[in-house]
């Protein structure tokens, strides 16, 4: 019985860590650019496809099956490319809505997400079907009567590292200072010769790259990936960020853990829970927003009258 509980707790923390990697990107983009980048989840889930494509390309080029080394290289490249993709999308579409009403930017990014998913479906060979995603880290250890897949441990560790890295970046570096300055007052930052454009690009890169890590782990965790997984993952990641309070990094993490917790709980206890998990998660989101409209740790923006 205790082993069951431990197993579920492990699932919870693993899932929470993965969601956090995506939620953090939503929060960062909102905090710095004041946009809800609705297609962030779709960008994050391009990474597994990129990695798969790269692995196949390397294997074809080397004429041999992929080795862990090439797989790692493919993963690293996929992360970097996804970061760049984030910048590209900003350049092509999102930046045109910098000063537009929030609703317009929101609808535009929803549409952008649709376009991204469809592009994957059309461009990736056999895009409509699910594809198997091998785990980079195989094997497991036994602890406290629970089988702990090494993959889960790595996912949690990497997630913690990434988030910690983000905190250090934002809090202790000059770049972080610039990012915070731009997020608070774009024009004032400009007067201090901080170029907002450059900061935006860096922010997009970081958010997309970290999201890519989350996307890769998610695909590995699930074992398969399909072009429309990003709808669920994106919505959950976005919900986690909103529940925690958009713009708040700690909030994004707590929101992710809360939602992952509910997700795991429902799957473990409710009969046929897997089908209903989204219902519970979204009812939670609605509930939180009704009582705390800006999220658990969000800043309620006081309008100057």
């Amino acid at each position, binding site marked *: 019985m205790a082993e069951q509980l431990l197993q579920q707790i492990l699932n919870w923390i693993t899932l929470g860590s993965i969601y956090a990697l995506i939620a953090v990107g939503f929060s960062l983009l909102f905090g710095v650019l004041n946009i*809800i980048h609705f297609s962030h989840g779709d960008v994050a889930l391009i990474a597994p496809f990129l990695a798969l494509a790269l692995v196949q390309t390397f294997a074809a080029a080397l004429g041999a099956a992929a080795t862990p080394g090439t797989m790692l290289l493919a993963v690293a490249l996929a992360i970097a490319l996804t970061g760049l993709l984030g910048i590209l999308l900003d350049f092509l*579409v999102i930046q*045109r*809505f910098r000063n*537009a*009403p*929030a*609703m*317009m930017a*929101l*609808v*535009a990014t*929803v*549409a*952008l*997400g*649709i*376009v991204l998913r*469809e*592009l994957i479906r*059309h461009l990736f060979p056999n895009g409509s079907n699910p594809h198997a995603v091998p785990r980079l880290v195989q094997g497991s250890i036994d602890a406290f009567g629970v089988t702990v897949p090494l993959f889960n441990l790595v996912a949690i560790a990497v997630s913690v590292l990434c988030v910690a890295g983000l905190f250090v970046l934002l809090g202790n570096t000059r770049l972080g200072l610039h990012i915070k300055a731009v997020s608070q007052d774009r024009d004032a930052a400009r007067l201090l010769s901080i170029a907002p454009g450059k900061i935006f690009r860096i922010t997009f890169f970081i958010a997309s790259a970290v999201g890519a890590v989350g996307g890769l782990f998610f695909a590995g965790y699930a074992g398969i990936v399909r072009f429309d997984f990003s*709808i669920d993952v994106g*919505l959950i990641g*976005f*919900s986690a960020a*909103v529940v925690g309070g*958009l713009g708040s990094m700690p909030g994004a993490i707590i929101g992710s853990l809360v939602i992952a917790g509910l997700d795991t709980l429902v799957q473990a206890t409710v009969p*046929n829970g897997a*089908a*209903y998990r*989204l*219902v519970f998660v*979204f*009812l939670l*989101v*609605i509930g939180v*927003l*009704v009582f705390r*409209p*800006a*999220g658990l740790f969000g800043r309620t923006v006081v*309008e100057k*009258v």
Partner: protein
Amino acid sequence: MTDMTVPARATLGTASGLALVALTEVAGAAFLRQFLLVDDWRAVVGLLALFGGALVAMQRLPAIEAGIEQAFGANRRFAVLLGVAIVLAFPFVLQNSSYALHLLIIAQLYAVLALALNFQLGSANIPNFATGASYGIGAYASALLALHWDVSFWLALPASAVVATIFGFLLGIPSMRTRDSYLALVTIAFGVVVHQLLNNLEFTGGPNGLVGIPAPELFGHSFASPLVIFGHSLPPQANFYYLSALLVGVAILFAGRLHHSRIGLAWNALRADELAARCQGINTTWYKVLAFAVDAFLAGFAGTIYAFYVGFISPDNFTFLVSVTIMTMVIAGGMDNTLGVIVGAFLLTLLPEKLRAFSDYRILFFGITVIAFLMIRPQGIFPQRLRRYGG
């Protein structure tokens, strides 16, 4: 931007005014007819180019648009009567093509959905990604009433509209405290919850949905049998064509009446500046909730007609993507402009059907269309027009 001063009293004589109205309406009807009947995709693209050209011409020469508006304004009754006549007579010129009628029915239902969303999105700038869910609730409520309790279509229609409206009110509750993007997320969440529940609950039939919804009957005439008027026999779809056209008429009426009223003004004020609206005495909470309720009411009606027309429904007819589609129609057609919204609905329903060669790219096409419109012409094909007053 065109000059917005009061247009001078109709400089066009009554005869030429009438002629202009008639010409515009007949030309529009002819265009629609051709669009429905052509098969070759090149002809479709050609027609589209013609349409686009007409729009560009109107933008370059605002005198044309002003002239047409004036003519319609001065000859309101004639325009309406002629329009109704054209709608009534339309099925007769469609060469008895049941496919064309089918397309019209779907287009008209989406026109109603787009008009419903327009109250919120166009008039009040309230994001609502749950219109598809209201549509679905209307459809399922009426289908369940018919299948389990033998309720007739004519009773199920208002009943399911009421159910959908209740859902709309529920949806409106979070809107009291949340705004903008947070509210959008709440509506998306509602939509997903509804879809998942419909997909998983037994009594809604699960993923297979509900089948065998009986066709409505009116005075002994079944809607599943051909419609015979003046000796001419029209395919059975014609029954639903007239029904959905009637609903579109009702929706247009609602839209116009609400727009040109204290309520429409309050919605517009809310959209422009919510704080200032409150300081004019507008109970913004109530008007937000009202927008949700009105949207759900009309969507519920449309859902019922859809259910009884197609005869079977499943949760996948009412997904998030459907809501996005409806939103696209409002944005592309023209926010807060009745004609624009209807044109948007027709265009975005008919186009993917006609470009069947590219049908697999339909969703991609939608996404790109929305983005393109938002970037190039955020106010839509037919942007909102300012109100006129006076006896």
